[in-house]
């Protein structure tokens, strides 16, 4: 039987959860305030600031950029990450152990350092277009998630099923697509979603790789906040929270959210 924690501890935990949610509620409140400045509790009620998101062309444009960037970067990352994760599990004995560390490197190097280095070397010295550098940066950013989450799914996959297919005459590449991949589908979906949300929220890498005419939503938000203090930022934030709710619903339906504590 579970022993109940001390009441003081329970009270403390309640406070913590209040502390976690209150700021987000405040943003929602501020986003419907009928004032030209940010305030809470809202004075009056309006959806004007939501309309304003789509009137400020910079928000519209960067939203599209962020979305395309996230999908492209994540897809690229999965295309190189899934084979790597597969090989790391399937040929664990043959491959040197340092290889699994290689894919954790983007975590060891601070994001902001990676962003700065990419700007210096890839954009300036090698002359890659800004959007291509952004895609490269975001693909690297999410690679560790892709490799690790897919690896975790593969770790519980029984490779003898694949061997059975191969020994019965199925070509290796076909066995991978019809036997292995469907079995780790949940892991791939999880990796895709986590990577997507990480990419959409990224600041530190995009910070150096945006220029005139090209920017991502978080960078645009930061720039907007430094000049204006109107509720549009709050309404964009609420929109981003709605995206989060959507993502959580998908995760819950495919894997269960408790997956994230593992």
């Amino acid at each position, binding site marked *: 039987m579970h022993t109940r*924690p001390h009441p003081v501890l329970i009270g403390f935990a309640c406070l913590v959860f209040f502390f976690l949610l209150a700021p987000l509620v405040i943003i929602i409140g501020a986003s419907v305030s009928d004032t030209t400045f940010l305030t*809470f509790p809202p004075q009056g009620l309006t959806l004007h600031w939501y309309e304003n998101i789509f009137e400020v062309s910079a928000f519209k444009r960067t939203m599209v950029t962020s979305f395309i960037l996230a999908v492209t970067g994540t897809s690229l990352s999965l295309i190189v990450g899934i084979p790597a994760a597969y090989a790391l599990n399937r040929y664990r004995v043959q491959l040197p152990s340092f290889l699994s560390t290689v894919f954790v490197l983007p975590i060891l190097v601070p994001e902001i350092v990676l962003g*700065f280095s990419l700007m210096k070397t890839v954009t300036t010295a090698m002359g890659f277009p800004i959007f291509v550098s952004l895609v490269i940066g975001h693909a690297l950013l999410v690679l560790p998630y892709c490799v690790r989450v897919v690896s975790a799914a593969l770790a519980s996959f029984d490779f003898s099923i694949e061997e059975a297919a191969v020994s019965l005459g199925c070509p290796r590449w076909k066995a991978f697509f019809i036997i292995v991949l469907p079995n780790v589908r949940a892991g791939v979906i999880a990796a895709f979603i986590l990577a997507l949300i990480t990419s*959409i929220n990224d600041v530190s890498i995009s910070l150096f790789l945006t220029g005139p005419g090209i920017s991502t939503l978080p960078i645009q938000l930061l720039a907007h906040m430094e000049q204006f203090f109107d509720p549009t*930022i709050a309404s964009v934030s609420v929109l981003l929270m709605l995206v*989060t709710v959507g993502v959580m619903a998908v995760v819950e339906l495919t894997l269960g959210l408790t997956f994230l*504590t593992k």
Partner: protein
Amino acid sequence: MTFRQPGWLLVLPATLAVAMFLGIPVFDTFSTTFTDSTGFLSNYEKFFTSRFRRAVLWRTTEIALITMIASLLIGFATAYVVSRAPKKLKSLLIIIAVFPLLTGVVVRSFAWLVILGKNGILNQILLSVGVIAEPLSMLYTEGAVIVAMVYLFVPLMILTIVGVLEGIPEDLLQASASLGATPFATFWQVVFPLAMPGLIVGAVLVFTGSFTSYATPQLLGGEQQMMMGTFLRQRAMVTFDWTGASTIAAIMTVVTIIIVLAMGRVARRLNPAAV
């Protein structure tokens, strides 16, 4: 072992991508810091002899340490309650913790801008209660940065620690209790040591995360509370001093790697069974 084995071919694209777009650029950043005409280490000498730069490094370390300790304490206590909660409630609490985590850093830091501002909610509340006579300026202080960072990292800490607490077999707690240990003794002698690896992982994530953060110090600290991340950005994009920026980048990376490796060692020593 030969290179013809399929394993090599499959890891090759990802390895090449990391080598080319992470290895080369970061190596390049590091190497430019050693090429100053006045000496091999003169860029670092410049960094460490400047009072201002030392202050930025010290402030960053201090904020990261305080954030780490506060998040550990808050996260552990909360995670303990969450892990003991009935199943339904537990799932709900985990959802509440995940939600801010998936909401971007900019949005979450922005919330504190609204709360702590001159006309912010906190000032309004304090004024109406009569604790203060005039609104306090809370923005652009170290405290503002720390509060927002703790807010940023507590969910991560809760989830990491709930993960390890869930892995502790119920039998161990029952055994401890049936052998006469008080709940307090069970906690310190059974739960705490077993949770240690999770606490260390959480501590590393929070320390390195706050040490290298940008958006939060930029929004809530401003110029007054310059941290390594905001300083790097200022050197690179405002003053175009790329060598100076590279020196900052190298110091940030070295600190991050040292912390990760050192904490990994501590974790192994405390619990040789885990990884």
